[in-house]
């Protein structure tokens, strides 16, 4: 049996990924998480002295806290199995990756285990996030200097 024949058999037996259903599920769950975030923004503006600009901070913190609780109690992975990217992309996904890694490595101690491994998955998010923020800011600075856009 040559490689091509084998690949054909594998393709035939592979279950088809239901793209549309997956996208719909991700959209719904991601949308719900963002709606909850928006409700939190309104909550913080209404009952505390945050403005639109500053309310993003406690909202993000609250969402990460919720994700932390769900991860700790084992519910987040069930939501994820259903939603896929819908739960991984919002900031709750970031919270989940940090907390799950922290829980996992407790057996290796707090400093090397938890501290050293906590950002195992989230590390690349931070690295590439900071890197792209740098480049975007650089491009905007250049454009402002030329006079194409303003701050």
């Amino acid at each position, binding site marked *: 049996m040559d490689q091509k024949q084998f690949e054909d058999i594998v393709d035939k037996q592979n279950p088809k990924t239901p793209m549309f259903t997956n996208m719909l599920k991700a959209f719904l769950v991601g949308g719900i998480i963002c*709606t909850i975030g928006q409700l939190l923004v*309104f909550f913080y503006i209404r009952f505390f*002295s945050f*403005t*639109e600009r*500053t309310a993003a901070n406690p909202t993000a913190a609250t969402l990460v806290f919720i994700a932390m609780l769900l991860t700790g109690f084992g519910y987040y992975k069930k939501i994820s199995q259903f939603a896929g990217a819908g739960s991984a992309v919002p900031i709750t996904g970031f919270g989940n990756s940090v907390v799950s890694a922290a829980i996992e490595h407790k057996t290796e101690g707090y400093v090397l285990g938890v501290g050293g491994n906590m950002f195992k998955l989230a590390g690349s998010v931070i690295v590439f996030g900071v890197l792209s923020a740098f480049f975007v800011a650089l491009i905007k600075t250049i454009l402002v200097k030329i006079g194409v856009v303003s701050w």
Partner: protein
Amino acid sequence: MKNKWIVILLFLTLGACSDASERSVYPSQDVELEKVLDEQDSIIGYKSLMDDNTLLVSIEIPTMKRFSKVKIEENIKKELENQYPNKEVIVIDDLKVRWEIEKIIEKEQESKELTKSIEKILALSKEET
């Protein structure tokens, strides 16, 4: 399984709720101010507070125009400064400012309290974090 869908639909319908945009001026019916603000077609609502020294206007910009929020705020500010040269004019599009002004209008505050409230709102809007 069925419960999940009901909750989802509930969220979707709630998301459609929103307040109607208001136009109000306080403390007095300042016709000129209202005329200037009504002429602006880039905003769909406004609430303003006037003091002896300050004019604080909170505007409501439609969602799609929010990209040019800063420009719109500056344009309106310039126009109002022409009309009220001896007052400090502040134009903001912010939900918190809008709600605070609404509260002040409802409470019908006068002179000194009004000044204090305006200063508080200004301090809030200058916060960065």
